[in-house]
């Protein structure tokens, strides 16, 4: 059973990546990037397929067999002859590698220290995600996990990519050991830094990849959120996968549709991870269309999001109770909140205060805002940058209009939202800075920035 599950994860991930890239991996950076993407896709597909199988009453063994078979078929069908272009050469100084090694060691130490201090994970881990995994494993009827009689704190309307993976891990382990959610959380943490770092290295050279990894690993909140076993870091991984694939696709003159399909698939898995993922998928599609005017490319992205998106639709219509933000809202409340100047002022104050919230983000947020406002805003807009801007802007009306006390909701949610967006924001910002300081030496003109192309 364990071997079959591992095969299903590995083959589906490898098959999707093989189908999404039009050429063969050319060097270690390229291979490492594809392995990281494959791991994220494999885990996500394994969990999404579990949800679909539970809803239609198919056993986990049959589901894994089908997944492994489909993955193997994709792998065999997509055997490109051409090699990809070499990764650009912009070597990083040795001291930067040492700093990255120290950052990795510290992040791992913080992960285990926090895990020891909070043995059941963060609040949301036991209140939402691992609670759902327990329901999935223990309840004789699937619908019990989404009972409308559960208090809204359990968020029974949330999609269940993470609980689905944890529940399957519990079953495979034969007991509900905390090692399962810890391992899954750790894997997604590694992938969050790995995907962005390797995509930057692939696009601009190793120096920029290392800077991307440092900008993720040394955010003080990052290893804590990984250790908390919540769904925010997995969501950030799928957003980063989608952003990386869009960036890679538009850095090529042929702009392969299959890469955009795969980017859409990643965005769909994000939507199956957390409700915010649907917003990010829509923002990526809007950013793509706005910055590239490439309707066919945008449609390919949307088509890629359809499988996981359909799962979200079926779950929301057939299983999930109403979301608390909807359930507790009224027309009068929405109007009152929209025209309350104190609420606007409070939101502005809380947002500005968070920018300089040293405890959680050290100097990273303020540095990002400075970089965006001083340098990056002068550069041409990009699909990913535009998508992140749209997503951030969308949170303004959401915070203003939602029914909970503003200060409480902002305090308990904004760090999670920032962490969800952070890896993709690091990708977009560092790629823009790399473009701004000039092109490093390129391996081949085929991989060069297309004149007038939107970059990242």
């Amino acid at each position, binding site marked *: 059973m364990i071997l079959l599950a591992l095969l299903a994860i590995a083959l589906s991930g490898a098959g999707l990546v093989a189908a999404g890239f039009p050429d063969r991996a050319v060097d270690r950076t390229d291979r490492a990037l594809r392995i990281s993407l494959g791991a994220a896709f494999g885990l996500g597909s394994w969990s999404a397929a579990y949800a679909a199988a539970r809803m239609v009453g198919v056993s986990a063994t049959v589901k894994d067999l089908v997944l492994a078979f489909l993955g193997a078929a994709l792998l065999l069908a997509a055997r490109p002859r051409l090699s990809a272009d070499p990764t650009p050469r912009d070597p990083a100084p040795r001291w930067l590698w040492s700093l990255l090694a120290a950052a990795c060691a510290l992040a791992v130490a913080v992960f285990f*220290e926090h895990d020891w201090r909070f043995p059941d994970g963060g609040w949301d881990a036991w209140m939402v995600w691992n609670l759902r995994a327990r329901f999935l494993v223990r309840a004789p009827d699937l619908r019990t996990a989404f009972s409308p009689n559960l208090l809204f704190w359990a968020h029974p309307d949330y999609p269940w990519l993470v609980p689905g993976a944890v529940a399957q891990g519990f079953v495979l382990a034969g007991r509900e050991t905390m090692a399962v959610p810890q391992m899954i959380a750790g894997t997604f943490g590694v992938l969050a830094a790995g995907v962005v770092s390797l995509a930057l290295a692939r696009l601009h050279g190793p120096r920029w990849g290392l800077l991307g990894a440092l900008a993720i690993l040394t955010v003080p909140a990052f290893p804590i959120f990984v250790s908390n076993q919540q769904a925010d870091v997995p969501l950030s991984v799928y957003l980063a996968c989608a952003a990386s694939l869009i960036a890679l696709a538009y850095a090529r003159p042929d702009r392969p549709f299959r890469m955009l399909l795969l980017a859409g698939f990643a965005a769909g898995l994000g939507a199956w991870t957390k409700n915010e993922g649907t917003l990010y998928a829509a923002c990526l599609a809007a950013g793509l269309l706005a910055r590239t005017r490439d309707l066919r490319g945008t449609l390919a992205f949307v088509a890629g999001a359809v499988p996981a998106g359909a799962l979200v639709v079926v779950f929301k219509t057939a299983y999930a109770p109403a979301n608390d933000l909807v359930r507790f809202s009224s027309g009068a409340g929405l109007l009152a909140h929209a025209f309350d100047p104190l609420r606007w002022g409070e939101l502005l104050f809380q947002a500005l205060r968070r920018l300089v919230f040293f405890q959680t983000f050290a100097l990273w947020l303020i540095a990002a805002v400075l970089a965006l406002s001083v340098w990056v805003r002068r550069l041409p807009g990009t699909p990913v940058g535009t998508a992140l801007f749209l997503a951030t802007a969308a949170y303004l009306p959401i915070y203003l209009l939602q029914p909970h006390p503003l200060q409480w909701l902002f305090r308990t949610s904004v760090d999670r939202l920032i962490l969800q967006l952070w890896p993709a924001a690091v990708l977009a910002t560092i790629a823009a800075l790399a473009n701004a300081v000039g092109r490093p030496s390129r391996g081949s003109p085929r991989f060069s920035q297309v004149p007038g192309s939107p970059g990242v």
Partner: protein
Amino acid sequence: MTAQRITAAVAVLAVVGMLRAGWLHFVSEPLHDFRRERIDPRYAAIKALLPRSGEVGYVSDERVATGPFGIDASSAGTRLFEQAQYALAPLVLRYDDDHAPLVVANLADPAKLPEILLQKRLIVIAEAGPGIAVLRPQ
């Protein structure tokens, strides 16, 4: 702006972030914070007394937020409720339902059990630890 300057700036930001994380986790927290208890042991005994699935009532001496009103002031009661829900899943706990055939009492202050019994007209079926008991309506 050069690649070297950007590298240096990111390195400085990274060092500041690492110092902050190192200070919090390996200096400040060991001095001022404590290790949380595992959730399940508190509920192990009562779990054996309850059905494996279905719904049961839940009462407590701490208020649980059931909507936006007073959400910030009820975190202790909410935490107690949600921890019980986590431990006892797939049983669904119905907050403040004191008419259910079985009711879980989960109290922050065990001394308040007689007061709760009187107020809610419940009787004890079995106590399963300090502040935790299975009740039923009188």
